[in-house]
């Protein structure tokens, strides 16, 4: 069943990409594929045993035995929420793609490859298999930015490619080193996890892994590719980039950083917490200075992803659960905000904070978009009743006893979230509509449907957080105890 989550998107990508189908048919195939994978994930969710700390629905088939590569898949409380997020956001990305998109066959094929690749990475229980999927998703994303991106798409796509390829090399170096030092002939995660290397070796292997995933997350100072990629990517791609792709980095951080090198991780944790607080404050400070709405959300992502590093550094039961929750929370909120910024851009042709004014105008503006933007800002700022509050509260509650100063600094970062987003809201949505702005076409309800779905989940998980935490709580303990 788990293979279906990878094979169905790949098969659909092949059909869409290699056969001369019309654009609408390609879109429909992509939609059916996304709905199917989401359906499979929901079925898996009903069959998932929350109390079981290990792998479930595992599949282990030898693939290329002489290099130790096995086709080993499985899900646990860490990967399952991200799989669900991936399938949901893929569906939302397809729905929010313009029906008149250029070169639809290639576009939908790349989108499906991206989705399948991300699912494969979350499912892989073999380090080499994880690396293959981790690298695989770079290719479609490169094309999605380079072909369907904005004015500086070539630059942004190349920067993304170079950074994330380097990230992959570093992660692979760490994995190869681990296999070499343990003397194993397999890349199987569980097998490698049973070895405990000396602290020096752990630090030696953890360093490249950390730099690799810090690029992917991204954490300051390895972040510079992200704002460019977000700004140049189209709205659906920004949704996937923020909602899923960045999570590959934090997933690798928890799965391999904590899971394979626990002692080294604990040794470095105080420094990682400091780095998390610097990244959070840096992201927030940069967001304040931006004049492009998309860049504000992009820098906000850098700040909010740093909370996951803080929570992982604290390595308490609560903070590890919080890290998973923050991944889901950020995935939903950032995707929501990117959809809304995309809507503003689609209707006004601008994202410039110094140009746009008064978009909350009830008759000629974008009142529903603006209203939802305010709710998104409230969620991102951590207002109670929404998913952002729960995730940030759990992160800070789980971390403050271990790293009080970095946690307090991250809390300042949360305060700054309200500052930079309210600056945007105040300028762009309040006051008088921009003089000379061409008449803004109305937004149809179906155009807002993807954002409504995300908003519903933002409230649902904010009011009923145990729907997420009960997936990851047991697994969080297992990661810390080596279980």
């Amino acid at each position, binding site marked *: 069943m788990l293979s279906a989550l990878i094979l169905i998107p790949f098969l659909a990508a092949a059909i869409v990409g290699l056969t001369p189908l019309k654009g609408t048919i390609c879109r429909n195939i992509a939609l059916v594929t996304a709905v199917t994978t989401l359906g499979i994930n929901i079925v898996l969710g009903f069959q998932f045993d929350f109390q079981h700390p290990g792998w479930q629905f595992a599949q282990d088939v030898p693939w290329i035995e002489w290099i130790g590569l096995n086709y080993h898949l499985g899900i646990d409380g860490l990967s399952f929420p991200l799989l669900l997020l991936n399938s949901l956001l893929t569906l939302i990305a397809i729905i929010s793609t313009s029906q008149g998109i250029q070169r639809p066959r290639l576009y939908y094929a790349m989108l499906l490859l991206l989705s399948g690749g991300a699912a494969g990475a979350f499912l892989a229980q073999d380090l080499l298999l994880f690396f293959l999927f981790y690298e695989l998703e770079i290719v479609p994303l490169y094309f999605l930015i380079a072909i369907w991106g904005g004015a500086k798409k070539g630059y942004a796509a190349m920067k993304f490619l170079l950074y994330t390829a380097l990230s992959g090399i570093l992660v692979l170096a760490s994995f190869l080193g681990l296999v070499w030092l343990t003397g194993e002939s397999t890349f199987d995660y569980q097998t490698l996890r049973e070895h405990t290397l000396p602290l020096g070796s752990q630090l030696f292997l953890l360093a490249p892994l950390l730099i690799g995933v810090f690029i992917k997350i991204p954490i300051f100072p390895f972040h510079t590719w992200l704002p460019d990629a977000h700004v140049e990517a189209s709205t659906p791609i920004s949704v996937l980039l923020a909602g899923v792709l960045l999570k590959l980095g934090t997933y690798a951080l928890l799965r391999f950083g904590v899971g394979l090198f626990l002692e080294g991780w604990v040794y470095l944790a105080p420094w990682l917490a400091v780095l998390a607080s610097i990244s959070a404050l840096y992201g927030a400070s940069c967001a304040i200075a931006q004049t492009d709405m998309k860049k504000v959300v992009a820098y906000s992502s850098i700040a909010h992803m740093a909370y996951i590093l803080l929570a992982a550094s604290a390595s308490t039961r609560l903070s590890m659960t919080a890290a998973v929750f923050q991944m889901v929370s950020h995935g939903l909120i950032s995707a929501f905000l990117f959809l809304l910024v995309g809507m503003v851009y689609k209707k006004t042709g601008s994202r410039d904070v110094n140009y746009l*004014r*008064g978009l909350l*105008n*009830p*008759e*000629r503006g974008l009142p529903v978009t603006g209203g939802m933007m305010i709710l998104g800002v409230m969620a991102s700022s951590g207002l109670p009743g929404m998913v952002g509050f729960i995730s940030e509260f759990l992160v800070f509650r789980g971390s403050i006893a271990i790293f009080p100063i970095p946690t307090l600094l991250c809390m300042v970062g949360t305060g700054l979230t309200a500052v930079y987003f309210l600056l945007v809201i*105040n*300028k762009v949505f*309040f*006051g*008088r*509509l921009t003089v000379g702005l061409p*008449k*803004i*076409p*109305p937004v149809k309800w179906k155009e807002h449907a993807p954002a409504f779905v995300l908003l519903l989940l933002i409230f649902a998980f904010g009011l009923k957080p145990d729907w997420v935490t009960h997936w990851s709580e047991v697994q969080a303990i297992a990661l810390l105890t080596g279980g």
Partner: protein
Amino acid sequence: MVSTEVKRSKSYFIDEYIARLEKGDALLDDTPQNLVEVVGILKSYGVVLDAYSVNLCYIADTQFLKLFPFFKYFNGDVNTKKFLKFLWHDRINYEYAEYCMKAMFWHGGGGLDAYVDTPEFAAATEELIKAYFKYNPLMIGLHKAFKDFLPEQMRQMAYYSGLGQFWRVMSDIFINLSDSYDRGEIKCIPDVVKFILDGLVADAARPITYTVKVRDQEYDILPKSAGLTFLMDTGVPYVEAVFFRGTPFRGTVSYNAQAYEISYDLGMFNYGALYADPLPIGGAGIPPTLLMQDMRHFLPDYLQDIYRQNVRGEGDIRIQICESFQKSMFCVTTAAVQGLAPHPLNTEDSEEQMANRKYLKGWLNRILESQILKVNNQKTAEVS
């Protein structure tokens, strides 16, 4: 192709608009689109004004001196069906008429404003108050303790009646204008202005009176002998209050402080209908929204079709109505400016021309600060 944008000084536009008015043209550009919008919107405005007028006169005639006139918007027909409709808000928003009345009352001007402060008015209201509260010693006692309260209520009632009578005439003019247009007699914007001007002139001397009845005894609050007339004592103060200074259009100019849209000179703020920024229409609590909401129910089909062709269809219809309404008010203002001019504007006598130009310059100095240049797609230089 390189596009260039020409910006001209205010004095240039004053000269241009003086020439335009002397030629017999209107402040508003004469285009087929403007003609359809102005006539269509004035038709719906006429229907709404009729309802406003009836209600204002009803309140003045029957709700005077009532401290809690709960059902003043029901015109004496209170029943459950009407009450539920009222609560549902699918009704004429009479509140807008009261906003206009209060604007006139506040800004004053004209003979009506002067008369309500005369001893004759005070004596008439005193007599009325005593008769009305003849069997109510509590109110008579309160009246003695607070001498200004009830007379002030009657001053306000005089304005209810005055505006009601003014709108009665204007409503008929606008409906007749629409009928003339339908018959093909109105072909351009100057025709619209002429029609309105003729209507104003025809009723200029119409007396404004106000009489109430208490137990079969009539009391002349504004007697015919006061000499109050339609044009100078209600029309001109109305134009001044609502078109230029207008309380009812407060809130329609919204500013964003962070975008440096707040003027350092607070004297630059104007809230009249001619200055109103149509964009905030649709916002809760903004009085013009009520008027636009009322007018949208009575739009002629040809105007509705034009609005539907807009980018947002009927989504921003109230703003489109406000824009058309503003255009129509420039036509009414043109008629008022022409009607009040010291000499015919097409005079060839140089002394009369000089007097006219001095008179027109005074108006245009104010009018050019309004939305007229924007409505006519003209741009003025920042330094004028």
